[in-house]
C-alpha cells in the first residue's frame, strides 16, 4: 500500500536535512502510527505522503504510484484530516460538507448519514463557528472520509479532545479499518497510539529508530513483575515479585498476610517508557 525507501528531505534554506533516510512499508488495512516529539520529522513525512512536498529524495510509493508524479486524481483516493479543523466558519456544517463533497468526481457518502453516524445530525444546520472543539474534530474526520478514501491520513486525531470524544474518535478510526481502509496516524499521544495502532514507528531527528506493534514491544521490553508497597511500622517499603508462579511465592504471600498493603501494581511498561528507553528522548 505504502512503500518508502531511503526517503530524505531538506527544506529550502534549511541547514540540515529534516528526514535522513527513512525506510518503511505500510500494509493494506493497517493502522500505522508515526510517533515522535515536535520537529522530529513526522509531519514532514506525512506532508510527503499526501503529496504536499514533492522535492524529496528516495522512493515514496502510495497506491502503486510514485508520489512525485501523482496528479490531482490522487486525492480522490486518499483522505486527510489535519490537526486543526479548517472549515468555512460562517457556513453551516451541512453546507461545508456539500461544498467539499462537490470537489470529488467519484462516489461519495451522503453527508447526512455520515453526520448521524458521528452523532452530529443535530448540528447539521449550525454554523461551524458555533461548534465545540470535539464536534469540529468529528466533523473534520467526517470530511476526510466523505469520498470513501482507501488511505486515510490523520494528524493528531485525538488532540484536545475530552475522554468521551476521544473514545468516539478511536471507535470511528477502528471502524474505518474494519471497512478495509489503511490509516496513517501522526501523533505524540502515546496512549492513543497504543490503543489504535497495529504498528508504530518512532521518529527522532529525521530517523526511524524502531518499527513494531505496540503489543509486541510491551511484551518484549516490559518487566513481568508485581510491585507491592506496604507499611512496616511507620515506614513505607516496596518489593518486586516475578508474576510467573506468584501464587507459590512464600515471601509474597507472607507480605500479604503480615503487613498492611498500600498498593499493588504489575510493572508492565508503557509505550511512552519504551519510547524514552529506545530514543533517549521524551515526547514533549
Amino acid at each position: 500500500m505504502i512503500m518508502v525507501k531511503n526517503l530524505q528531505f531538506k527544506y529550502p534554506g534549511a541547514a540540515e536535512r529534516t528526514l535522513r533516510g527513512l525506510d518503511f512499508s505500510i500494509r493494506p488495512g493497517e493502522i500505522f502510527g508515526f510517533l515522535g516529539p515536535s520537529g522530529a520529522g513526522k509531519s514532514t513525512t506525512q506532508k510527503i505522503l499526501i503529496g504536499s512536498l514533492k522535492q524529496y529524495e528516495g522512493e515514496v510509493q502510495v497506491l502503486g504510484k510514485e508520489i512525485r508524479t501523482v496528479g490531482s486524481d490522487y486525492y480522490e483516493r486518499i483522505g486527510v484530516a489535519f490537526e486543526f479543523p479548517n472549515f468555512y466558519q460562517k457556513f453551516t456544517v451541512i453546507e461545508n460538507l456539500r461544498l467539499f463533497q462537490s470537489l470529488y468526481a467519484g462516489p461519495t457518502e451522503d453527508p447526512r448519514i455520515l453526520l448521524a453516524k458521528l452523532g452530529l445530525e443535530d448540528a447539521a444546520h449550525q454554523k461551524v463557528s458555533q461548534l465545540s472543539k470535539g464536534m469540529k474534530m468529528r466533523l473534520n474526520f467526517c470530511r476526510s472520509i466523505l469520498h470513501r478514501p482507501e488511505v486515510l491520513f490523520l494528524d493528531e486525531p485525538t488532540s484536545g479532545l475530552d475522554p468521551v470524544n476521544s473514545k468516539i474518535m478511536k471507535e470511528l478510526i477502528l471502524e474505518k479499518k474494519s471497512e478495509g481502509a489503511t490509516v496513517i496516524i501522526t501523533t505524540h499521544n502515546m496512549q492513543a497510539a497504543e490503543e489504535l495502532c497495529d504498528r508504530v514507528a518512532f521518529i527522532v531527528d529525521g530517523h526511524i529508530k524502531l518499527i513494531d506493534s505496540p503489543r509486541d514491544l510491551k511484551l518484549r521490553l516490559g518487566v513481568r513483575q508485581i510491585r507491592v508497597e506496604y507499611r512496616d511500622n511507620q515506614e513505607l517499603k516496596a518489593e518486586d515479585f516475578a508474576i510467573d508462579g506468584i501464587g507459590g511465592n512464600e515471601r509474597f504471600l507472607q507480605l500479604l498476610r503480615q503487613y498492611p498493603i498500600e498498593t499493588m501494581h504489575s510493572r508492565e511498561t508503557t509505550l511512552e517508557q519504551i519510547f524514552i528507553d529506545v530514543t533517549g528522548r521524551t515526547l514533549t
Partner: protein
Amino acid sequence: MKKYRALLLGDIRQLLTDPMLMSSLVGPLMLIIIARLGFPILSDWLVQDYDFLLDEYISFAAVFLLIVIPMLPGSMSGLLMLDERDENMVTYFGVTPLARAGYFRYRLLLPSLLTFLLSVLFILLSGITEIQPENIYTVILLVLEAPILALFLTAFAANKVEGLALSKASGLLFVGPVTAYFVPEPWTYLAVWVPTYWPAQSYLTGIAGHSLASVGWFVIGLVFHVVLLTKLFHVFLRRTD
C-alpha cells in the same frame, strides 16, 4: 466544472450574507446607472448654474469610472483569499482533487471574468464612453488589474482587517487616470508605476485618434501587468506556505 460550481455557490452564499462583499458586484452596476442617468443631469446643472462644460471632461469621467470596476471584484477576491488563508482552507483545498492550482485558478479568474463582463457592460451602457476598437486594449488591462489587486491584498496584508485597510488604500490607484488626463508631458510619465495609468492612457490616446500610441500603451502596459501579477503571486505563495 462541478468543483468550480461548488466554489461559486459558496461565494454567492458569502456574498448574500456580507454587504461589503455584495457591494463589489452591485458597485459596478451602480456606476453604470450613475454614469447613464447622473452624468447628463449633473452636466446640465453645471452649465446652467455655473457655465461649466462638464461634457468636455466626459472621456476623463469615463476612464475614471472604468478603473473602479476591477477594484471591486479584485478586492472582493482578495478579502475572501485572506479569510481562506486565515482559516487554512488553502492547505485543505491542496489535498482535494481541486488542488492548490485549481483554487488559485478559480480565485484569480473569477474577478477577471467579472471585470470583463462589468467593464464591457459599462462601455456599452454607460453612455459616456466612446465605442472604439482601442477599448479592447483597455478592457484586457482592466481584466488583469482585478487579480493584481487581489494578490496585492493577500501579499501585503496579514489578515482580513489589514486587508480591508489596504483595500481602502487602493484609492491611490485613481492617481493613474488623473495623471494620464491632466498632467502634461513629461511629468505625466511619473505615474507609469501605477497600474491604472496604462489602461487610462490606452483609452485616452485611442479617443484622441492616436491608434499607434494606444497600441504602445497597451503592449508595454500588458508586459508591466503580467510582470506585476507574477511577482505578487510569488510573494503570495511565500506567505501562504
